[in-house]
Every structure is written in structure tokens, then in C-alpha cells.
């Protein structure tokens, strides 16, 4: 069977988890390409208008996959740790997808709560009539692939720390900072300007106590605790317009960064964000950092 995986939301958190799982079950995986113009246009057409761009983009990617596979994988994430929560809009993705695309598009549903992937995987495996041993192996290979990906991110992070260039930490949801079409290639723009762009998802956690219950908020604060103790020239926070989780998180991030006396800039993106405005902000931020270093 051909299983479509939208390259959006949680795909960016653990790109190899679900692709490995389905491949191990001898399913053909069809991954949608990185966001491009037709996908963005479909996202705006199909997405409900109160969502942030990232949630709209899921529907763009599903639109792309609709006639290219038998079923589309649509997981609902509740939270990645006990007593923590993902964005509530993620819960709705499978049901909203069903209502948008109607009965002709079939979805493989799966639920992830408290960061437990096994229960959902076992259920999916049974639905795909996988035998017990193959299924067990698929689960452990998938979880291993996820772990290895994380290790690679951390290794990359350590390499970046030893770089001679000025280091900028880019804070944001993984699906915002790694979707280069939607974020107007922010990471590449920073690199073109001679900066070492460290994405927050590559930073290991320092254990912290926090009352923040959103996965993203909690993880980001734990990662800032680690990365801000290095020689960091600036922090750029990248948000999607309308993101409720960021509305809670960003003031805490800004406050934390301010305590270290590091310049911090908050960029908000939407589907109509002009590149000129983004470049003005990035250039000014880079100039500001240079002025501080020289001054």
C-alpha cells in the first residue's frame, strides 16, 4: 500500500520516525516535497482561516498527496511528555482533514499522548495486518531512527558551537524554522550574511523547573538554559501569525534572553509576508550585532 506522509508539523520534529516505521512494515512511503508555491496556494485555499500558516500547510501537503497514495497518515499529537500539551490545533488535524477532503481521501489515524508512540504504532500495525515480529521490529527501528536523528542534531550543534562565526540562535517551532519556503529561507539568509545559525531543536536540554505546560514552551526554555551559556551573538524568534502557543512562549523567551544581555528579535510570518520586510529586519539585526561587538 502507498502511504502518504505530509511534510509538515511533526514530520520536522522526527523526520525518520514514521517513514522508517511504515517502510519496515513493507509499505511504500510517499513523502510530499518541501513546501512550494502550489502547496502554499492549496494550503490557503483549504485551510480554515483561523489557523496559523503551519496548520494550513498540512492541508496543502495533504492536497498534494491526495491522488498519489492510498492512505494519508494523519496523526493526532496530544503531548510529548506526561502532563504536557501540544498545540490543540494538532488534535484536530485528522478530523478537520476528513471534513475538508471528504470520503474520497482516506486517512490513517493514530494518536500520540504523553510522548508514547508504541500504542499508536501497534494499532496501526494491526490495521495494516503486520505480523507480530515484523511489527515489533518496525517499532524499535522507528524509535531508534528517531533517537539517531536527535543525536545527529546534537552533534551538529556541538560543531556549530566551535565555529568562528558569530552565532545566532533561531528559536521557533521545528515546522516553522525548517520550512524554508514558508519562512522565506531565513536560515540561508543568515548564512549568506556570515552568521552561524543554530536552530533551537538541535540544542540538548538542560533540566529545568517550569510551570509552562506546552511542549514547545517547556522544551525551548530548557534549551535556552543550555545554549545561552555559550558565546551567542543574537537570538531570532520566528513565529507564525496567530500562534497561540507562541503568544505564551515568546515573552518568556525574550525575558530570558534579555537577562543574558543578548539582542533578541521576534519575527512574525504569514502567507503574505513580503521578503523585503524580512530582509530589512535581518540586515538591521546583523548590523546591530556587529555594532555591539565593535562598540
Amino acid at each position, binding site marked *: 500500500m502507498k502511504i502518504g506522509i505530509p511534510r509538515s508539523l511533526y514530520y520536522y520534529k522526527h523526520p525518520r520516525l514514521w517513514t522508517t516505521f511504515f517502510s519496515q512494515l513493507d509499505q511504500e512511503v510517499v513523502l510530499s516535497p518541501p513546501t512550494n508555491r502550489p502547496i502554499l496556494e492549496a494550503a490557503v485555499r483549504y485551510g480554515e482561516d483561523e489557523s496559523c500558516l503551519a496548520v494550513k500547510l498540512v492541508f496543502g501537503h495533504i492536497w498534494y498527496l491526495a491522488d498519489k497514495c492510498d492512505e494519508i497518515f494523519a496523526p493526532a499529537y496530544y503531548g510529548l511528555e506526561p502532563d504536557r500539551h501540544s498545540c490543540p490545533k494538532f488534535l484536530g488535524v485528522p478530523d478537520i482533514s476528513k471534513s475538508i477532503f471528504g470520503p474520497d481521501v482516506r486517512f490513517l489515524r493514530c494518536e500520540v499522548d504523553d510522548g508514547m508512540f508504541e500504542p499508536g504504532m501497534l494499532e496501526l500495525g494491526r490495521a495494516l495486518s503486520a505480523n507480530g515480529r515484523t511489527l515489533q521490529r518496525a517499532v524499535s527501528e522507528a524509535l531508534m531512527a528517531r533517537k539517531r536523528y536527535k543525536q545527529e542534531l546534537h552533534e551538529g550543534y556541538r560543531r556549530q558551537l566551535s565555529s568562528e562565526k558569530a552565532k545566532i540562535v533561531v528559536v521557533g517551532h521545528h515546522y516553522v524554522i525548517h520550512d524554508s519556503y514558508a519562512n522565506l529561507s531565513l536560515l540561508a539568509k543568515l548564512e549568506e550574511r556570515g552568521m552561524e545559525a543554530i536552530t533551537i531543536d538541535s540544542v540538548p536540554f538542560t533540566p529545568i523547573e517550569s510551570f509552562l505546560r506546552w511542549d514547545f514552551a517547556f522544551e525551548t526554555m530548557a534549551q535556552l538554559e543550555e545554549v545561552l551559556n555559550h558565546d551567542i551573538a543574537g537570538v531570532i524568534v520566528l513565529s507564525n501569525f496567530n500562534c497561540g502557543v507562541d503568544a505564551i512562549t515568546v515573552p518568556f523567551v525574550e525575558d530570558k534572553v534579555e537577562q543574558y544581555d543578548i*539582542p533578541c528579535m521576534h519575527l512574525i510570518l504569514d502567507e503574505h509576508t513580503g521578503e523585503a520586510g524580512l530582509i530589512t529586519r535581518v540586515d538591521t539585526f546583523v548590523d546591530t550585532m556587529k555594532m555591539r561587538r565593535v562598540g
Partner: protein
Amino acid sequence: MHYLGVDVGSVSVKFALIDEKKNVVDTLYMRNHGVIPTVKKGLADFQAQLSNGAKVSGVGVTGSGAGFSKVLIGADVHKTEILAHAIGTLHFVPKVSVIFEIGGEDSKVIFLRDGIITGFEMNRICSGGAGAFLDSLAGRLDIPISEVGRLALHRENEVNIASRCTVFATTDAIHKLNTGYKLEDVLMGVCNGLVRNYLAMLYRKVSPPPYTFQGATSKNVALKHALEQQLGAEVIVPPHAPCLGAIGAAILALENPPQQTQFKGFELAKFDYHISSFVCPDCENHCEITQIMQSGEPIASNGSRCGKLNF
């Protein structure tokens, strides 16, 4: 030796000429009626205005239209409007701690400490709290934009105008006029609302004065009054306030002098420029590529997401 600064904004284009000691020789402010004719005419007018002539050793450009104008004029230095404004302001008010600048389509707040930019805010998704809104409202009410501030200070009653969105603000202003409020009252209400919306960017972190207020909107005495009232502090309108970005760009050119300037001269009229655009067919992104043609040859190209057609 002189240095030329050009600030190409969305509503206006500003020119400034400084000498090697950073003294301002002259400035020129023009409405932007399309970047190619405005820059051409501006340079010609500016040259006519400079009675003693100018020997230009370097050119700096800034503003939202700077990337484009850089090739048009032959500029040596291109910096963002925030940096240019900060540099221009520091020249006149070295101790400035916060710069308030309300432009046509964007508004900014720049924070400084000991002459170094420590942070900035720009209006984000919407340009609502910016000068072009006042301009269009004044046009609709058939009063010259230069009169708005003076009229507004003659208000008799306090009028509250919804300020979050200029579409609603316009509706609200027209409604208030139709319920019998005086024009002066409504104009002051609009200025107050615009400043309220503008200052909403600053949810925290305001250091003590000195503050400056600039951009062409700083000529509007009612806006200055509203800003001072809402900040509870005096704001300085520096000399050449509408042209500080251009002055800053000129200073940046002076401080980063080119070996040999790229400046094409004040007589740009002799060059034939036009714009051509096409859709790149190479992938599904179908980027719209814009090129500046000089005598039939592309001298600059923009709009390609993958970057291969940008130069």
C-alpha cells in the same frame, strides 16, 4: 569632497549631501511617484539646488526601495533604514536613547545605549499606524496634509477614534464628523489614535529620555503633541527630521568610503531605464522575476526564490 545619501521610502524619496566633516550641505524631500522617474527627477532637481556644485566621492542608499535604487544611482553603500536613521540621528543628538520614527508605510522604534543600537521594533503584519493613513484621510477630507497638525491642535473636544485598524479608524472618523464633531476634534482624535496604536509596539522596555521623533510625520505638530502626552516626556525633533535617513546613509558612505565611487552622476535622465518582468518556468514555484533594463541590458534581477536569477 561630498557624500550623497538617498533614502527611497514608500511615500517619499529623500536626498542629502554632506561634506567630509559631516556638515549637511543640503537636503531634498520629494513625493515618490514611481521609483525610476522620482529618482531621476530628484537627482536633477537636487543638482540644480546645489548652487556650488558637488564632488561626490561616495553614495549611500537606504529605505524600502534601496535595493532597486542602488543599481539605478550607482550607490556604494546600502544599509537598512533603521541603521541609517540611527546614524543620522546620533549625529545631531548623540545621547538619544529612543528614536521614534513614523514613516509612510512603516513605523519604527529604535533603542540605543551609548550610541549603539540595542534593539528595534517595526510594525509587523500591518502598516496601520503609519503616515500614509493620515495622508489618505486628509485627501478624503480635502485638506492639505501639511495643515492636519495645525488644525488638530485647535480642537475643542476630546474625540476617541478607534485606532487598531485604519479601515475602522476611517469609518469611525467619518461617523464622528457626521454626528456633528468639528473637523479639528476628529483630526486630533485620529492623531491620538495613530500614536496609541504606534506605541502599542512597545509593551515594555522604554529607557529614560532623550527621545527623538522624526520622519516626515514629525512635521505634524499634533502627532508630536500626542506622542509627548502619551509618553509623558518631551521629544526632540532633530534638524532635517524628514531626511535623517538620507543623512545617515551619506554618513555611512563617508565612513565606509569606496576606492572609486560607482555613482553614475546627477544626470540620470540620459540613461534609459525600464522594468521587465517574466515568470520563471523552471519549477512549480513560478517566481515572478523583475529586471531593471538599462539600454536593453538587464543590470539587476530579483524575485527568484532559489536565487539563481537574482543579481
